[in-house]
């Protein structure tokens, strides 16, 4: 059994107050392991993003505990949570969130810069990360001149470049066509399998199921099912996953 990187125990989260109060999470137990790509699937409003925010140290649970690389996120101030994110987590966002005035290489290098890695070494690492996602020729291109799929690959390179233990991806293929979606998922799957990271992808896109090692279904703030991805892959080959 591989090492657990992220662990959540009995996570509950209430959003809003009074009449608008919503039980977003109702007791979630979850662990993410090295070398495993996990999908968190569920309909809108099921609590996917809330759980992602808690696992990503951006939101505190109302009760329960979350641990990232052995560090509990309970009673940690915002700077402490930022440090946990900096040290251990890489994020991939649905809408990329690249810096429009920086080149692709600078966008990737930024992830190193905030960690105190500057200069030629950081620039070299950024170029290598772009090569890994097949964008070495676009290093000096601004995000506005890249396609959606290319922008998402830059965002993935940015998430990987500092070699985090866990990658949290929020709907990374939602805005992409089939070919680009497949490319992105292959990169994420490689990140889990070849580079021994824990990867969690939050999605409601069934096309990406074949890339998963494990699928967690969430509904009304509860995990209602867990499947191993292997059997799913058998039913739906990767090549056929995206039309």
């Amino acid at each position: 059994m591989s090492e657990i990187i992220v662990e959540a125990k009995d996570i509950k989260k209430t959003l809003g107050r009074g009449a608008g109060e919503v039980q977003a999470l109702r007791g979630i137990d979850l662990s993410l392991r090295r070398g495993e790509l996990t999908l968190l699937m569920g309909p809108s409003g099921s609590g996917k993003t809330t759980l992602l925010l808690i696992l990503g140290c951006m939101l505190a649970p109302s009760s329960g505990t979350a641990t990232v690389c052995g560090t509990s996120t309970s009673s940690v101030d915002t700077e402490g949570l930022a440090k946990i994110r900096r040290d251990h987590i890489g994020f991939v966002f649905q809408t990329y969130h690249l810096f429009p005035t920086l080149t692709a290489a600078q966008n990737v290098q930024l992830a190193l810069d905030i960690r105190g890695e500057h200069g030629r070494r950081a620039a070299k690492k950024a170029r290598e990360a772009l090569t890994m996602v097949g964008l070495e020729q676009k290093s000096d291109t601004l995000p506005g001149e890249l396609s959606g799929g290319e922008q998402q690959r830059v965002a993935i390179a940015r998430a990987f470049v500092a070699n985090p233990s866990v990658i949290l991806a929020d709907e990374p293929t939602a805005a992409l066509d089939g070919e680009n979606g497949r490319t992105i998922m292959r990169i994420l799957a490689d990140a889990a399998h070849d580079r021994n990271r824990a990867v969690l992808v939050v999605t409601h896109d069934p096309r990406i199921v074949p890339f998963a090692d494990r699928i967690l279904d969430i509904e009304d703030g509860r995990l209602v099912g867990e499947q191993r991805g292997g059997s799913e892959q058998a039913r739906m080959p990767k090549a056929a996953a995206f039309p």
Partner: protein
Amino acid sequence: MSLVLTLASRNLFHDRLRFVATLVGIVFSVVLVMIQMGLFLGFGRMVTTMIDHASADLWVLPKGAKCFEDPSLLDANLRDKVASVDGVASVVPLVIGFSDWRLESGEVTPVFIVGADLRDRTLQPWNVVEGDVRALSQAGTVAVDRSYFERLGISKIGSTAEIRGRRVKVVALTDGIRSFTTTPYVFVDLKNARNYTGTFPERASSLLVRVKPGADRASVLQAVQAKVTDAEVLTSAEFRSRSRSFWLFGTGAGAALFAGAILGVIVGTVIVAQTLYSSTKDHLSEFATLRAMGSSNSYIYAVIIYQALLNAVIGFIIAAAIGWVVVEVTAKSALPIVITPWLIAGLFVLTVIMCVASAIGAIVRVVRIDPATVFMR
């Protein structure tokens, strides 16, 4: 090199219109402060120009004399008492005062007479560009500054006019001895000065004292003061400071200049704060992304402060260039604007402080960023 500076500069230059508006604000503010302070310094220098150019260690003045131009008089016989003090090398009476200068055309204009015993060279015209100061010892001779040719109705050495009904001839011309009162200085010999100002022979405006080399100035000052109880004894530095205080603060001129400078700082700070805040607001999602990626608050503050510093440096360079032009243009005017290296250094520090202080609003806004907003669709 960190990307902080790159990010800050791209944020800044991305919206060129806002960047130009920010620079206009900073340049306006810095130039305003520079001119006000330059006027202050220029005025401060002009009001003490006679004291600065007098080779005196001590000044014996009528009690309560507020400045060089003070019309009060003292007993000229004090000269002997002062001269008898140990350590005193020489004592030279000085007579100053306003008088009337009648042009060849018959028109009359006021002038300010400065008369000392020219043999002692304690206070005589400087920057002489034509003529000979020694000729001033003859009766009816004067030295004037050539910038006042038009006002005095003369055009060259040898020109003539009348002071208090007495014929005078210009025998020396100076360059750049201008009066802040706009009344031309007219240098004459002591005896002529008495005639032109109506000062009796036993009276003088002040006594200029030179201390013997090696003598202790403070001790000599005390000894002179003890001898002349009905007059006041000041060092040149003290007299300079008193004159400056009188003209700059006694008249309110200095306060007005300072008020203008403070207004400039306030206007600049508000403009920079507003544009920086608006720029930060436009880039909030980027700052939230940085925060989500795990950036520390200090990294984000650094981006904002670098933006402020870039504003400061670029704005200051433009303002300094404008200041240099203003200095050149006003150099020969009645009130030249003086910009010293210290003023430049001080203004740079002030610009940086102003711009960084302006960043506080933007920083306060960024502190409230919720990194989770990057997941909101």
